[in-house]
């Protein structure tokens, strides 16, 4: 079955195979795609681990920053504002290299590239999630808070039981979006040497020079991953809507 598929696809896209031969590959495109999949799978595990870890932490940081930004304290407002502005104002790659090479050297505290990448992605997604959460909370009609407070519920309880559950549903699409952005951003962390999918493909190319196919294949892997995630979140969204 697999063989038939490969033959069929080779017939449909003969130039892909030719190109592979032209750049020195010994197998055609689809055989090559299969042959590098264990390597990419190793990368995929790392990509997913990074995405999930940094997003869980990012959600916590985002919530914290969001509460700071809506609190009545002037200092907390400013703190959250400064954090958002720094993250938004600097490129992810600069943040990553700064923390991994710069900060660890300056503090004389060597950290692994994985730890550095989690910190960077956490801070990065946290900033954007903070804004998403804030807009979700402010989208709730202020009558909801008033009704809760008029019943004698303290502000914190009203927030937890009335406002946040409603805001949660509103922000799911935007959080999905941030999830996807963070997933794709993990590829940038290949610059500090985390062995995620992008890094794995770069190492393959360093050995076999099959850049066109390798990058095309890794693009498909990312694409499929994003599609699956989107579907999962849509499912979650629908479940919560009921």
């Amino acid at each position, binding site marked *: 079955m697999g063989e038939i598929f490969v033959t069929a696809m080779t017939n449909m896209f003969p130039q892909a195979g030719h190109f592979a031969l032209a750049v020195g590959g010994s197998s055609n495109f689809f055989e090559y795609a299969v042959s590098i999949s264990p390597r990419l799978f190793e990368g995929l595990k790392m990509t997913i681990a990074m995405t999930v870890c940094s997003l869980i932490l990012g959600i916590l940081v985002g919530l914290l920053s969001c509460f700071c930004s809506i609190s009545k304290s002037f200092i907390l407002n400013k703190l959250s504002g400064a954090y958002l502005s720094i993250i938004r104002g600097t490129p992810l790659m600069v943040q990553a290299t700064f923390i991994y090479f710069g900060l660890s050297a300056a503090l004389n505290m060597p950290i692994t590239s994985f730890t550095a990448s989690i910190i960077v992605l956490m801070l990065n997604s946290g900033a954007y999630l903070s804004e998403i959460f804030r807009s979700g909370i402010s989208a709730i009609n202020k*009558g909801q808070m008033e*009704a809760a*407070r008029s*019943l*004698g*519920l303290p502000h914190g309880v009203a927030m937890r039981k009335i406002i946040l559950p*409603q805001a949660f549903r509103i922000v799911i699409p935007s959080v999905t979006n941030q999830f996807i952005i963070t997933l794709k951003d993990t590829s940038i962390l290949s610059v500090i040497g985390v062995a995620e999918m992008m890094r794995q493909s770069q190492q393959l190319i360093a050995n076999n020079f099959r850049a066109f196919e390798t990058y095309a294949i890794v693009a498909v892997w990312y694409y499929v991953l994003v599609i699956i995630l989107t579907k999962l979140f849509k499912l979650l969204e629908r479940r919560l809507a009921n």
Partner: protein
Amino acid sequence: MIKVKVENLKKNFGSLEVLKDINMEVKEGEVVCLIGPSGSGKSTFLRCLNKLEEPTAGVIIVDDYDLMAKTSDINKIRENIGMVFQQFNLFPHLSVLQNIMLAPVDRKRMTKEQAEEKAKKLLDRVGLLEKADVYPASLSGGQQQRVAIARALAMEPDIMLFDEPTSALDPEMVGEVLEVMKQLAAEGMTMVVVTHEMGFAREVADRVVFMDGGYIVEEGTPEEVFGNPQNKRTQDFLNKVL
């Protein structure tokens, strides 16, 4: 016995003086209707009575609690002041029953079982027992407002505040809400009602208070205010609405 005592109440929004000098008392079991043109400050005044609006100056005593004292626990005081809003403000993510049970259980007034029993009794009273398990979105405006009344009553308040409870309703649903309020008045509940329903005020109120321009311009029994208004502004207003 005096339930509500207001002296020299002032409320500014920025440079706009909404309440200029309000003095009023409400006795136990009394039904007071606040009437007046829009912008006269009657809703703001009502919202000061449970401190949804922070008064700029003045004295407010509710149930012997001084609302303006820094040491007062506003949440504790609010437990005894029910409020019904123009826009109902039911919690859309909770079922009708959960809407009513939330505050009594959270504030430890009742156990879950007691609260459920109480909620069902109240729903029966407002004629919506069969709607206990549905969500607010599936109810008509009149039904939502009756649930909102039941929710406020679940805390067994001494005083009920109504902020234009029928203004957002389709005309054919006004009657069912007013009916519930009449019943409540007949049972001796102390009520302060901001309303445009002059028929209701005339029939149910013990006292009608006409507000204009941030002052109480005239007050008296419905017969006095509707039948023989003394003030020119009261006369103008009543000529327009009756």
